[in-house]
């Protein structure tokens, strides 16, 4: 669906059904350079299992209009405002990668906006390899290629897509190639310069963190550093899965999400 928000058109994927205001809202936030479609293996399922999923395209991403937001806190403020505009009460906020940083910020600074958060590919800091940042700044195809190469576990580089006929590696690369010039760089720079500080200690809502054992973008060690700061956390590990876990292991993520959201 499309909503008009702050004078711009914002696109949200709702699982191919009309948003049901009676069902608990789930807002899903994508990672750097990506868009709503990274959640395509979950939204429709959630929509038919008692939730109202909305996978958003951040400003300047996917089919959303608007200017790019250049810092994680600015993206978080925007998400909090959007939650207000949706007028469905506090949401269950699900974030992947850059979206997990945004979710942390929303939960810490806009506690009334969220009921609980689910983080995937999360870390307290996301330093970006200088070669990747450079390629992104020059809008070179190398940036989508490096991100795709690092974002998938070994298995996903060969096979294993449960959706017949889809090929994960090119799926991810094509998604990133579709980003307009400057988008990937904007997002990676925002991740690179983000400092979480003691954010973990400022979050009161229930937190679920899902970790892929082969995640090279936000390695399990980096996630562990973040998790150490939470007083209480529901931590789930997925073996043999990389950073793009909701695409690499969609069945497991669907089940984990459903149990964590309820």
């Amino acid at each position, binding site marked *: 669906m499309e909503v008009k928000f702050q004078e711009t058109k914002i696109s949200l994927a709702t699982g191919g059904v009309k948003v049901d205001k009676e069902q608990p809202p789930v807002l899903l936030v994508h990672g750097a350079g990506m868009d709503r479609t990274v959640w395509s293996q979950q939204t429709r399922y959630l929509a*038919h299992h008692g939730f109202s999923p909305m996978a958003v395209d951040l400003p300047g991403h996917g089919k959303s209009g608007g200017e790019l937001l250049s810092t994680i806190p600015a993206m978080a403020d925007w998400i909090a405002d959007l939650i207000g505009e949706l007028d469905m009460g506090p949401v269950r906020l699900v974030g992947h990668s850059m979206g997990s940083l945004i979710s942390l910020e929303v939960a810490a600074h806009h506690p009334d906006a969220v009921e609980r958060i689910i983080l995937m590919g999360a870390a307290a800091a996301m330093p970006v390899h200088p070669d990747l940042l450079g390629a992104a700044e020059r809008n070179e195809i190398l940036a989508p290629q490096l991100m795709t190469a690092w974002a998938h576990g070994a298995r996903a580089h060969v096979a294993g897509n449960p959706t017949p006929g889809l090929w994960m590696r090119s799926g991810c690369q094509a998604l990133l190639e579709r980003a307009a010039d400057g988008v990937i760089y904007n997002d990676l720079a925002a991740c690179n310069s983000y400092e979480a500080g003691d954010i973990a200690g400022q979050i009161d809502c229930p937190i679920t963190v899902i970790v892929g054992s082969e995640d090279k973008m936000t390695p399990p060690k980096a996630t562990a550093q973040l998790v150490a700061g939470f007083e209480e956390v529901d931590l789930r590990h997925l073996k043999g899965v990389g950073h793009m876990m909701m695409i690499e292991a969609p069945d497991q993520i669907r089940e984990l999400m459903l149990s964590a959201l309820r």
Partner: protein
Amino acid sequence: MVEPDYLKFDTLSLHAGQEPDPTTGSRGVPIYQTTSYSFVDTEQAAGLFNLEQPGHIYSRISNPTVAVLEERLAALEGGVGAVCTASGMAAFHLACATIMSAGNHVVASRNIYGGSHNMLNLTMPRFGITTTFVDPRDHDAWRSAITPETRVLFAETLGNPGIEVLDVPVVAEIAHEHGLPLMLDATFTTPYLMKPIELGADIVMHSVTKFLGGHGIALGGVVIDGGRFDWAATDKFPTLSEPYDGYHGISFFEEYGHQALSMRARAEGLRDFGAAMSPANAFHLLQGVETLPLRMQRHVENTATVIDFLETNDAVSWISHPSVSSHPDHELSKKLLPKGAGAILSFGIAGGREAGRRFIENVQLASHVANVGDAKTLVIHPASTTHQQLSAEDLSAAGVGEDLIRLSVGLEDSEDIIADLARALKASQKG
């Protein structure tokens, strides 16, 4: 500078899309010779039918053996997804039917496979889809044939019968300037010789029957989704950008974005038209794909040797292949097809229709068949077979002279191929 640690082409040819079977450990791709799949429970069944979760339901829509081939071909082409079909023609029809409806229009190269020409020229108009054919080398003709109803530009990477090389980046640019996708039939090149998606094509189709399968034993086709085209940038592609009643109002673009075409082609096209590939054929075709790089290299080498021979033979009046310096696309071919311009060529035989007939009747090793892209060398003389009802004038209008012999160079020892051709050429001249 770091490089993406992607598995390389030859490795993907052998591995992409398959991991050892989780229950049996089978290293080879098993043939899942089944029509249907047991559901875990009613909830899972409902989820599968409703596209809430992926999985197999019925082999018209998907099958695990076919899915390995699909993932492998998508990997080799660099596409986001692939849908295999019963034949190359079924793939062409599936792609057209997925993105177009009655009232729409195609701009196509006039130098395409006869079957594809028939479908566009004679059959599709019955369903309200019309085509304007253009000279693929005439870029202004492409541009000026586009109308407000045009939905796709279509050509072959290597044309028929003149082995015209399509200037893919240029024609892709023309398509994109008009908000249209470029669809290519890449049967003659295979992803080993050219990666059309990297050059700007949006949809790639193959007759897998030919070089990809390589053994001339199984029919098959594939539609590969490049995933870079924006179907929702205009209102021209409602099958992808608008809600679809078939699945409770889903918009394929909203949900699947860059994979919208792959998802719709399967969920609607295979479901309703049903031109599915059989699992046994997928298995046979996979055996071919495993050795694609090795075979294509040898096809190209043998073609060069055969051309060297034909160039010195007095019974040969001309040779059409992009590797020959007199071919109009010789330079373009060096740029777009650095590994070679394929193994199909045509040549003219001195003495015309009669000499052509005698040549065909005297080959012994080469097979006289209506096919190309087999591991074995194949020949045909259109004027005395496929086009025998046409007059000399009609033949030349179709770009097929009375003297034209088409050769699909195989993997035999090139000395044996040449000896066979030499004998038959000699016999052809004894009128």
